[in-house]
């Protein structure tokens, strides 16, 4: 279980990006984080990943405090960030540097097959399309079998069709491996298709504005009335989260810890 306790982050330049986010995520849960631009979503994710440790509060995974990148936590960025000097297979195996060669080859092949790119093992990253590259990045993050997978707008640079395709891929992977997924997105549809819970964040400092459960059976039908209803609910929450920002109030007093409104 992943537990965030009043996680706050102030950047060295004085920006108060996160003000006390508290959150509990069960193993295997899919949480989508959504909110206006600059409300601290990436900051939150980077804090959980240990890349940028929090300045207040704590992130605890299975009783262990996360202050640096951890083997149980994988992260996928907005761009694939493949290493251009490694073939696709070596990119996928990047996180297995210390394992014996045969095991590495085996796991890399399995991961590539799972994202549907078994035939691309021997090509250079620059020979991939954007969607393929992002799939390789997903495979790379999955190969060390993380318990928690963090995704920061992983599909936002892709066209709508590829995006829907990769969402399905991600769900398939999740069905097989059941990692905890925490996904930052700007796309309300994406959040509802994927998530068990949608956290709406609001800015200055970033905090949880609303925590909306999505109780729809999978696979979810984007055309259904229930989907539409959930979507309207999230959009309304987003609207409210943005209206709460007094114009020009950069240094609004910090919200009370865990000011999440449940409904």
């Amino acid at each position: 279980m992943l537990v965030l306790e009043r996680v706050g982050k102030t950047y060295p330049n004085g920006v108060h990006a996160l003000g006390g986010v508290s959150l509990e995520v069960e193993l295997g849960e899919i949480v989508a984080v959504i909110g206006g631009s600059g409300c601290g979503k990436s900051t939150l994710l980077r804090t959980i990943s240990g890349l940028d440790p929090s300045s207040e509060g704590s992130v605890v995974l299975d009783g262990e405090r996360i202050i640096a990148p951890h083997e149980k936590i994988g992260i996928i960025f907005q761009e694939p960030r493949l290493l251009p000097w490694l073939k696709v297979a070596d990119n996928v195996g990047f996180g297995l540097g210390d394992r014996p060669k045969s095991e590495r080859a085996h796991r890399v092949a399995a991961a590539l097959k799972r994202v549907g790119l078994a035939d691309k093992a021997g090509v250079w990253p620059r020979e991939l399309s954007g969607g393929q590259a992002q799939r390789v990045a997903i495979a790379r993050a999955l190969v060390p079998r993380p318990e928690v997978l963090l995704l920061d707008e992983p599909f936002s640079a892709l066209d709508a069709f590829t995006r829907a395709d990769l969402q399905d891929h991600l769900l398939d992977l999740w069905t097989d491996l059941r990692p905890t997924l925490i996904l930052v997105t700007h796309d309300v549809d994406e959040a509802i298709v994927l998530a068990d819970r949608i956290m709406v964040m609001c800015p200055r400092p970033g905090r949880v504005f609303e925590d909306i459960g999505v109780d729809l059976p999978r696979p979810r039908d984007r055309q259904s009335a229930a989907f539409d209803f959930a979507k309207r609910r999230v959009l309304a929450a987003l609207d409210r989260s943005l209206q709460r920002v007094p114009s020009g109030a950069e240094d609004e007093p910090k919200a009370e810890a865990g000011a999440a409104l449940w409904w």
Partner: protein
Amino acid sequence: MSLVGMSIIVEGSPAQERTARNRWARLTRPALGFVLPVTLAVTWEFVVRMGWASGRLAPPPSVIFATFVDLARTGDLQRNTLVTLGRVAAGFGLGAGVATIVGAAAGYSPLVRRLLDPSLQALRAIPSIAWVPLFILWLGIFEASKVTLIAVGVFFPVYLGLMGAIQSVDRKLVEVGRAFRLSDVAMVRRILLPAVLPAYVISLRSGLGLGWMFVVAAELMGASEGLGYLLIDGQQLGKPAEIVTAIVAFAIVGKATDWLIALVATPFLRWEDVVRQD
């Protein structure tokens, strides 16, 4: 059926034509670059043969070739080339070695950079040839001062290239390394080194180019052997063909060493090849 067959034929023939044309273009395009020099050489040879010019100060190609063969037969050409090559190798090794260490340290550590870079930039402002008298005073007129001058010439492009390359390594890729919990050593080996290599090879090649330039300067200023000595010898004895022979030897050896670096680096830089189509 027939439609399919037809479409294959229809699409096939222009494609075949195109590959044929490509092959032809691949053969002729480099040849195009030879047109001008060959025309000039042939014209000059003709002019001298016809007696329209004496060719005493500007010998025709046949005389240059004969001199080249002569010098090669006596072994003078090889010996002098080897001497020069040895000086460049020593100077390049020294300059590039020190530049690699200092450049890596300055690129990696802001402290080292702030400490060293201003002084090095100030030194760089001095035209390197200006050091020659001082080097001769300090190190004598023999090998040490020559090698030092070459090393100074090689140092700056390599230092600047490597430091710049390290500083401009994509931080996003470094972050990938951090996310996978690479140790410092692994980070250098698996991320920094490959990321820096293309720019480093380029800087080595431009350093080598400067090394060749500076070996000429060093040898012109006094040497009893080396290709630069052949230049001076040709000038003092009024043998322009010997000068041109030495120049040609410089060009050949210089290009060959550059090609050697490129060749050694190729397998490591294959990923960088751009699929080029013109």
